[in-house]
């Protein structure tokens, strides 16, 4: 244990230095099997970016098929080989494989692992004031389980019979019967194994996030002073912890059905010239289990993005987030209701229509807290002093997508209207805007905002602006027209629209336009990639608090070392949103500034809080050594 007096500010640097000499970790422990939450966050980020590139390129390939059905794709043969048929066209089997992999990768690997994994890991200890996660070891396991899941999924892409291809929802019997579909052979086995590992990773991570938030908050950091990011990550972890095990059991039962002859989801099937012995199972059961995770999952993807946005919008509007308590309440409402709306994905599966009615009412209730959040963001902008950093632009874009995509949820949640729209492009438009694009914008906003804290350098603003505008316009161009195509009745997961009269010969140019827009949007992401890598090496050095923000992570050194704060962890006295407080000298007052130091700006009830400060200061539950250890 270092003996330097850590409380004396003068020796902070020495202490940090000292510390490193004592605990020099070897390369493997430091960068690969790291237990430091910041390193793990970066591992998640890099893996997430890797998957995003793959996932989005897949969508570009199948958009080529949809937008330009006549196009010869021979030039893709060097990359995807025999999946290009003799005729020079994409094989329908591979089309479905691409769609399935795109969905799986984007939802689970990019927007769940890449988003929560990066920012929950990075921000929870830094913003609640903890040295690290509750269990660094479990945290490390969590990443490496994710890594193994990624590896299996990646390998499955190269199989002779291709990866899973039954849609990202993998409904049996299609996914259970190898004789039904190429994608249900080895690819499906790997998909299920990969998801099982992925879920283990999510659970290990989630337990850690929850424990850290509950147990390791610094002195004075009560739940009512937590930044909204932390509230969001916390509730997300709770959602995941309750719902992912259900998907795990669904996956295990499906594995049994596939390999051990059980009949959980199979009944009365005649396929490939023979009647199968399975009776008594129910394919609908799988759908219930899947969507019991599936719907919370959409909020697992969305809540962290909303949390990140809350923080960024408040900081860059230089205003407190409007309705802090209402924001927490609506997140809790959403988190609770998310568990009791799942069957709105199943209105026309033959489920009891009475159940349909119940789920329809519940679904529309969940729209209320979602609407409240949108209104609160808008009011936060009102009479602000807005700085358009790239992160801020992406956050505003997120709110726009969340609104435009969210309102169609009201249509789809209406069972009577869902009859016509279910499984058409209208649904594709809805969920890509409300979840895909919004959550991706949350991820991008987060990277732009916390890049300085992660890597000690700034990203280039100008490139960020260009990246934002191309992506924002591009995404609307891709998904807005899909509403029209959906209203015209175009079913989703169709390889081509030539078989039916009601879809052939119409909207061809619209589909071409969408595909072009998708290509432009995809290309624009390379600006980001360039910016990311370039700034990593050559970016301008960051200052300690480049955005003049209130939360605790900006009280650490520019590049926080192991243990985050070289000396004692700061105590917290106020909420994180004291921006532009009347009377205050600066337009921000960080959380660790006691009220006793800001008499000029204290509100009446805050004057009374001064008397509590000594008690807060004296507490010391989690940081007994007052320095990293």
């Amino acid at each position: 244990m270092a003996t330097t007096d850590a409380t004396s500010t003068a020796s902070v640097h020495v202490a940090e230095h000292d510390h490193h000499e004592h605990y020099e970790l070897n390369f493997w422990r430091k960068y690969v099997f790291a237990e430091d939450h910041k390193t793990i966050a970066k591992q998640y980020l890099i893996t997430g970016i890797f998957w995003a590139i793959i996932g989005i390129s897949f969508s570009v390939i199948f958009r080529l098929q949809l937008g330009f059905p006549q196009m010869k794709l021979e030039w893709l043969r060097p990359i995807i080989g025999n999946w290009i048929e003799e005729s020079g066209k994409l094989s329908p089997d591979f089309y479905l494989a691409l769609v399935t992999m795109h969905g799986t990768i984007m939802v689970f690997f990019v927007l769940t692992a890449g988003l929560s994994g990066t920012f929950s890991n990075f921000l929870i200890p830094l913003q609640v004031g903890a040295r690290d996660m509750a269990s660094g070891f479990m945290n490390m396991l969590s990443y490496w389980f994710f890594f193994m899941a990624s590896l299996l999924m990646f390998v499955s892409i190269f199989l002779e019979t291709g990866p899973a291809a039954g849609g990202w929802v993998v409904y049996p019997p299609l996914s259970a019967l190898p004789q039904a579909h190429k994608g249900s052979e080895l690819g499906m086995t790997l998909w299920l194994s990969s998801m099982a590992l992925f879920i283990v990773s999510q659970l290990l991570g989630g337990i850690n996030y929850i424990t850290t938030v509950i147990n390791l908050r610094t002195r004075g950091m009560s739940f009512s002073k937590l930044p909204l990011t932390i509230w969001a990550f916390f509730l997300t972890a709770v959602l995941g912890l309750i719902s992912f095990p259900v998907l795990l059991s669904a996956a295990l039962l499906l594995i049994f059905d596939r390999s051990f002859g059980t009949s959980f989801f199979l009944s009365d099937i005649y396929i490939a010239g023979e009647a199968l012995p399975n009776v008594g199972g129910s394919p609908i059961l799988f759908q219930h289990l899947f969507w019991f995770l599936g719907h919370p999952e959409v909020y697992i993807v969305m809540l962290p993005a909303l949390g990140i946005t809350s923080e960024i919008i408040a900081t860059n509007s230089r205003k407190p987030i409007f309705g802090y308590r209402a924001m927490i309440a609506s997140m809790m409402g959403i988190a609770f209701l998310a568990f009791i709306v799942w069957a709105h994905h199943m209105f026309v599966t033959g489920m009891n229509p009475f159940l349909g009615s119940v789920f329809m009412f519940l679904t529309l209730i969940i729209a209320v807290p979602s609407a409240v959040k949108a209104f609160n963001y808008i009011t936060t902008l009102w009479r602000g002093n807005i700085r358009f950093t790239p992160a801020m632009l992406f956050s505003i874009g997120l709110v726009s997508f969340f609104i435009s995509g969210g309102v169609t949820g009201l249509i789809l949640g209406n069972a009577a209207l869902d009859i016509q729209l279910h499984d058409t492009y209208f649904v594709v438009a809805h969920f890509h805007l409300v979840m895909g694009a919004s959550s991706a914008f949350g991820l991008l906003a987060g990277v732009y905002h916390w890049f300085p804290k992660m890597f000690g350098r700034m990203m280039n603003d100008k490139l960020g602006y260009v990246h934002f505008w191309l992506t924002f316009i591009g995404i609307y161009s891709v998904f807005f027209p899909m509403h029209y195509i959906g209203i015209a009745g175009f079913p989703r997961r169709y390889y081509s629209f030539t078989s039916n009269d009601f879809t052939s010969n119409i909207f061809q140019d619209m589909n071409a336009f969408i595909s072009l827009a998708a290509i432009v949007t995809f290309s624009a992401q390379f600006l980001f990639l360039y910016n990311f890598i370039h700034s990593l090496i050559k970016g301008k050095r960051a200052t300690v608090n480049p955005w003049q923000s209130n939360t605790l992570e900006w009280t650490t050194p520019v590049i926080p070392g192991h243990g985050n704060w070289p000396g004692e962890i700061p105590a917290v006295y106020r909420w994180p949103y004291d921006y532009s407080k009347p009377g205050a000298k600066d337009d921000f007052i960080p959380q660790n500034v006691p009220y006793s130091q800001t008499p000029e700006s204290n509100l009446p009830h805050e004057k009374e809080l001064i008397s509590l400060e000594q008690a807060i200061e004296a507490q010391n539950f989690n940081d007994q050594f007052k320095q990293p250890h």
Partner: protein
Amino acid sequence: MVYIVGLLSLVFLALAFMVFGRLTSVMKSVGTSGEQETYGGTSNKINGAMFMVFLILGTIAATWSFIHSTQYFLPEASSIHGRRTDGLFWGSMAIVTASALLTNILLFYFAYKYQYKDGKRATYYPENHKLELLWTVVPAVVMAIMVFTGWKAWRDIMSEAPEGAQEVELVGKQFNWIARYPGVDNNKLGAFNYKLIDNNNEVGIDYSDEAAFDDFTAPELHIPVGKPVLIRIRARDVLHSVFIPHMRVKMDAVPGMPTRFWFHPDKTTEQMRNETGNQNFKYEIACTEICGRGHFSMKMNLVVEDQESWNKWCAEQKPLLSSFPEYASRIPASLKAKAAKYLPTVGADTTSTASTGGVASSGSASLR
């Protein structure tokens, strides 16, 4: 439209060039770590203004593309419930589009209006309970109305089929639909069992049920106009989903769990041909649940005709039992008499089968 897409692509190209033009200058500035930027700079103004530009151009583009697309939307529904849900749909769309537009306008306008100015200070405005209550309650009420109307429609659509509805059965398999009719004599669909499926008896008709004797199958669905039709839906292998876009009908086909959907078609194919001016118009049934390689091409034509020609069409169809008399061997002895009229006479029968023909012919022989 081709021109417009061409134009839009041009705009994109121009944009891309502009971006790359700027990029080169930006690249230069990337390396040289400039001094701390002040927030009121030109970039901030441009970004603020862009939000307004986006709002205005976006609204125009959305309106124009909508007007342009309406010609491709499905024509008015050909079923009674379909017109009801269409009305609800467009009503709800009006409400949600208006609210999305309004909130987006506020979002972009505030972003533009309250952009950073030196020396300005944001208003410390952390909450306003009245406002919050208002915008919780108003959406809740509007949504309650939308749900309530929707729920009533849903309840009616999903209610039990009315007495006297015409029943037909649709069976999905990779990758086509098979329609089965209750036949001309008893208007009842016979029992089925998936274990009885083979190449000829594709839907597994169970001939131990006398209602099955006159059932026939067809690769096309014919239904009479002007009366309720109940479709009983099954799947043989994997999930499928019956989608009749013009009727606003959709219901999954689930192996092991028969489902159903009833509706009241009130426009014949002929009428639609006249209305749309397209003499080749056909009602179609598509599949909307991913079912494998041929999912996109899994379709069936639907013919809606008046009762008379429907009856006539039915009478022309041959019960499956007549086409494949060997199944007579599955008929329990007590019912053989009833099946006789669907079976060819012995003389005609001799060529049709060798193995099971014996039983069949002996069955019919004993009748005489």
